[in-house]
């Protein structure tokens, strides 16, 4: 069965420089995949190729088994950009109606509910909206189409924290309905909260696609140990050791077995472990001094 969304060796070159390089990514129905990367990494370019707005230099972008940009692909996808640009003279309701008409279907009852929960005044003209409210117009249109594939590029930029929560609820509802979501975001907490898998891109290349837990394993687990534990550098799996007032902080990648065996020979008064957060994972991936994990 075809993936809801798939990039095969997707490449885009602008002026001789690759913006996206042989990117392989897939999202299945009912799955929410986060798409992380620093500015200029190629996230928006990838999403625009998946929408058919940009032509790939090579490779393929597929929506539900159909090439991106074809009528079928367009009719089954919806999009929210980070900077929504619409005709300023239209009202919010008109813009939503127009996008719904282009898509071919719009769940009117759900649209009304979305307008209510996003606290959008739909009778205002686009030119009178703030950035956050323009964003809400695009979000209402995207969710109300009930499209099988949602491509969201920084969709919550400009939204206040209350609206971010509403957005998260909508994504969860979309996932439960079996919609596939590719969520490009700088808000790591949002991705961590919503996404089962995370794709990380750097300089146009995909550096990792994995579950959040799996990614954590690359960065490792942090141990805070108090007591007289001696020198732990050189113990298998230990990647860094830093001193604390009454002990040490140790970073371990992979199994902690060797560390625990080493500690068994010392005097430990307390031991605390902490899994790496997605933010730490993100920073470890994009720290230029660190080689990308394999």
């Amino acid at each position, binding site marked *: 069965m075809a993936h809801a969304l798939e990039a095969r060796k997707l490449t885009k070159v602008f002026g001789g420089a690759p913006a996206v390089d042989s990117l392989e990514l897939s999202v299945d129905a009912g799955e929410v995949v986060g798409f992380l990367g620093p500015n200029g990494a190629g996230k928006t370019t990838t999403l625009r190729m998946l929408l058919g707005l940009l032509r790939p230099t090579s490779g393929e972008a597929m929506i539900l088994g159909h090439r991106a940009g074809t009528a079928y692909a367009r009719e089954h996808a919806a999009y929210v950009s980070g900077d929504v640009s619409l005709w300023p003279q239209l009202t919010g309701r008109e813009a939503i109606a127009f996008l719904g008409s282009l898509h071919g279907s719009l769940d009117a009852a759900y649209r009304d509910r979305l307008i209510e929960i996003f606290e959008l005044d739909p009778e205002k003209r686009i030119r*009178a909206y703030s950035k956050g409210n323009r964003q809400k117009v695009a979000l209402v249109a995207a969710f109300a189409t009930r499209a099988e594939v949602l491509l969201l590029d920084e969709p919550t930029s400009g939204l206040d924290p209350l609206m971010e929560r509403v957005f998260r609820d909508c994504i969860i509802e979309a996932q439960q309905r079996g919609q596939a979501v590719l969520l490009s975001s700088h808000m790591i907490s949002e991705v961590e909260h919503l996404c089962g898998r995370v794709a990380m891109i750097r300089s146009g290349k995909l550096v990792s696609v994995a579950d959040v837990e799996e990614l954590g394993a690359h960065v490792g687990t942090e141990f805070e140990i108090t007591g007289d534990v001696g020198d732990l550098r050189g113990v298998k799996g230990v990647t860094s050791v830093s001193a604390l007032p009454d002990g040490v902080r140790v970073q371990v990648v992979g199994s902690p077995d060797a560390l625990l065996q080493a500690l068994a020979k010392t005097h430990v008064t307390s031991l605390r472990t902490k899994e790496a957060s997605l933010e730490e994972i993100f920073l470890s991936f994009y720290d230029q001094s660190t080689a990308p994990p394999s």
Partner: protein
Amino acid sequence: MSRAPGSVHTLVWRQIRVPTVAIAVLVVLVVRVGISSYSLSGGARGMAGLRPVIENPAVSALYGRVTSLHSAGAFVEWKMGMFVALAVAMWAALMATRVTRGSEDDGTWDLLVVSRVGRQPALASAMLVLFEAGAVVGAATWLTLLSGGQRFSDCGLYGIAIVGIAWSGVALGLLGSQFFAPRRSASQVALCVIGLFFILRVLADGSARNVALRWVSPFGWLENVGAFHHREVVWLVPLLLVPTGTALTAWRLQRARDVGSAWWTRADRSRARESLLRTPWRFAWRERWGMLFAWTVGLGVLGVVVGYLTNALVQLCRTDPGYVKLLKRWGFGSMVTGRGFIAEACVLFAVALSFMVAALLVSVGTDSYQGRLDLPLAYGTSRAKWLASGVVTTVVATAVIAMLCALATWLGVLVSGTAMGLRAPLEGMANALTLVPWLIGVSILLIALTPRFSFLVIAMMLTVFYIDAVLGPIMRWPEWLLDVSPFFHLHLVPVVSSNWGATLSLTLIGIVAGALGFGVFARRDVGH
């Protein structure tokens, strides 16, 4: 440490330098051609016989009122002056709305306002640049006339008068930017006012009874200066001071309003009207509604004015057979009858309709590079359908407006007391429409290749082709050069029948260019 207002000065110049060079080159080209055609036509002696022509009210209304064509400068001022002035004023207004209202629309003005530059100094710097650009165009005019052997003082006077026209355009653009948002509205209002001033000048020169109207229009002031004729320097005072005062008023008006807002705004809230939102075809009408209304009113008023002038020409021809002979000798032979005058006017309408077609179509390119196409294309419509809906709307609207314009011209003819059926202006306007397939095809290709600069390129192309068609035969340019211009192939219908061979060739060129353009547009990256 850099000087902040100096940075704004440089920034604004970067925004307008290309269009400024383009309009300066155009003015130089037109003036140069005028000087050459004067010399080729036998100079002052050759022009002496034109006296009855230039004194005819209908001709005066079109070209302006002059007493003699004793020098190349006088000829340029009469034959090209008004249209050069109109083009310069429109360019200046568009530049003014671009750097002021346009910058407020896209948010770049915010950066200047919050920086140490400050809001009022930023606008003052922008105004200074716009006035400097006007001076550049005036200087180009002056130098071109001077290089053509005209008197230093006459050239200087005319150059300064052109600066005044440019400043008038700037002032109207600045004022429009204070009262209207977004930029498109500000530009449309400024251009409408410029059109109104031009029509006031036409009416003033069309009848001795209306001469006072010349005193309230910058184009009338330009005519009153008469740099190569009567040299009334005093008219430079309103020509330079009124725009300066208007610009200063705009500067003060900015201080008293919020950044990004305008003094006159439509209500921010409106009841949804969804009937024209159901398909891209319908939306294409909705998007262009305001522009269509403005063009209909503008061309309708022009039609009535042109129609009204018909009687003055016909009466003169009836009473003076020698004058008819003279008109024929000077290539105005078709204008001796009402039908002939309407046929000549319809060629001018063909030029106006061409600009309208370009303006209606290029919004597809504007939507593309401003990011407005992202969501519609992502939501189900295709590039080809979007472009096709723009093309269909443009074709239908152009046909309807051309026929309304024919009707308005006929009403003007009726009011003037000339006996003429509706069929004559209808046939003339239908003939003007034969250029539409060619223009649409070429415009589609340019929009696909360069959406950001498509209108500039099309406008330059139309202007050059029109100059080629009008002045090429007088200057005895090579046949192939004349053939290049589609306007050259436009017959004077209803005096003679349409040039069906050329129409077919131009239509084929349009179809090929349009097909290529559709192919390129369907494959191009959106937003690039």
